[in-house]
């Protein structure tokens, strides 16, 4: 593979979606991230798994640029987008204007309409956010994230507030969107089944670091039901310290 190195660059171009090196983040005396390392490859979907309060969201906020590390280094693409746990739609703007919030240019509306069609919401662009169901609202926020063609998409427990059926539909949607949008993704969740359904790689956080990392190379049907899936599931549960309870 030949890499054209930019003349001003002193280091080889990274093909990574995001690089986190020895990052430290403290809140008072409490060290939440303790020299954490994580690399997300281009177009890779990494699921970050961990019990609540372990620092998953802290790491995500660092990657988003919403927070600064106390030590170490975070390198992310400038074009990145976040899907929050709550939809965070502007209630006073219609769906279309919510999606075009960060967009400029004459084709902004058309691009937003295209992405809304991708998430299955064509014809709903004139609706107010209050008129949408929880699943629809979260799909709008997914569209808002994807419309800028980001190189890194950060998803902070995006489906946690949805019901089980809607959540499964959203998983299908994410898989379909990945084939069209070539972005690296980091999905934070505490749902082991969600991790298995979506991930290229599952990393488990413990003690402020990435504890274990599991590559998931399963076909779509195997992710639903297979021996490999069950093995992965028990491995993940063991990593989370829940092995005895299942």
């Amino acid at each position, binding site marked *: 593979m030949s890499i054209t190195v930019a003349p001003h660059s002193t280091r080889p171009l990274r093909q990574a979606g995001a690089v986190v090196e020895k990052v430290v983040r403290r809140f008072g005396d409490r060290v939440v991230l303790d020299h954490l390392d994580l690399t997300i490859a281009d177009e890779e979907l990494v699921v970050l798994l961990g019990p609540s309060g372990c620092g998953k969201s802290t790491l995500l906020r660092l990657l988003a640029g919403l927070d600064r590390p106390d030590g170490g280094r975070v390198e992310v693409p400038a074009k990145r987008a976040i899907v929050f746990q709550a939809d965070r739609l502007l209630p006073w*703007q219609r769906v279309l204007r919510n999606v075009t919030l960060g967009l400029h240019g004459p084709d902004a509306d058309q691009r937003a309409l295209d992405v809304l069609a991708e998430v299955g919401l064509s014809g709903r662009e004139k609706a107010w956010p209050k008129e949408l169901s929880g699943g629809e609202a979260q799909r709008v926020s997914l569209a808002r994230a994807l419309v800028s063609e980001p190189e890194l998409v950060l998803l902070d427990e995006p489906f946690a507030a949805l019901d089980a059926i809607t959540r499964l539909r959203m998983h299908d949607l994410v898989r379909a969107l990945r084939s069209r949008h070539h972005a690296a993704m980091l999905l934070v969740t505490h749902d082991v089944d969600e991790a298995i359904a979506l991930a290229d790689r599952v990393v488990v956080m413990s003690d402020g670091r990435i504890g274990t990392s599991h590559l998931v190379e399963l076909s779509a049907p195997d992710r639903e039901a297979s021996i490999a899936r069950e093995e992965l599931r028990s491995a993940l549960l063991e990593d989370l310290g829940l092995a005895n309870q299942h």
Partner: protein
Amino acid sequence: MTEVSLDRRAVGSAAAETPSAPGREVFLPRDARRQTLLRALRERLRWPLGIYTTPVVILIAWEVLARAGVLKKTYAPAPTSIVKSAIDLWQQGVLGPDLAISLQRAGIGLAIGLTVGIVTGVVGGLLRSGEYLFNGVVQILNTIPLLAVLPLMIVWFGIDELTKVLLISFGAGVPMYVNLFAAIRGVDQRLIEMTRTTGAGTWRLVTRVLVPGALPGFLVGLRFSLAYSVLGLVAAETVNADKGLGFLITQGQTYLQTGQVFVGLVIYSLLGLLADQFVRFLERVLLRWRPSYEAA
């Protein structure tokens, strides 16, 4: 003891309402409810009058009492005679110019007060330095009663138009600043954070998030501003005026023309009603996104 009272309640409700078991509620389509005579009457009464039911009832009672001679003419003349004296005053060429000069004062005062209130409110709300510049002063001014400023204004600016206009702008500007400032600062922090992550610039943040988010508070401020400006108008015109509605009222008081006093009061209240309807209209148009409580 408890059992007895429970029993009685159950029997009572069963007899009065549907034959449902105690502790149960039955929901049926609205059409299925029987159209009783009472309900039909209530629907009919509600339709033409709406919120004006009570004022109209009071007016009719007032008219009847005045005609029956219970209320003396100098105490409270009948509504019809108030209308008559309004027409008389208009035909004498008194009411028209007085109303015009009052509206002019209110208009100029409101324009100055709202402009200053909105500009300082937006700057104070958006910028930390703006807050430091304006907030302390306005919060102090906010605690000073409008009417207490009047003597000072007369000393400073005389008894001319300037005092009246400034009093009205003071009344309009301060509540506008206070409400607008609070509204901008009250916009959900999570939405602001989200907006920044979409790559939207400061202009987008202001126009699509902060301004529309602060609109409900702005309209509350506008309501107070309009109400206080009418208050300021009354106060300014009652003291040292030779034209305007307040003058009309003072004159009526001096010559015991109670009808004339009432004409002034009615016009003030109409101005207040008009202002309220205006803000309601703005709310309907600007806050369409917000489904609000519809009383039954």
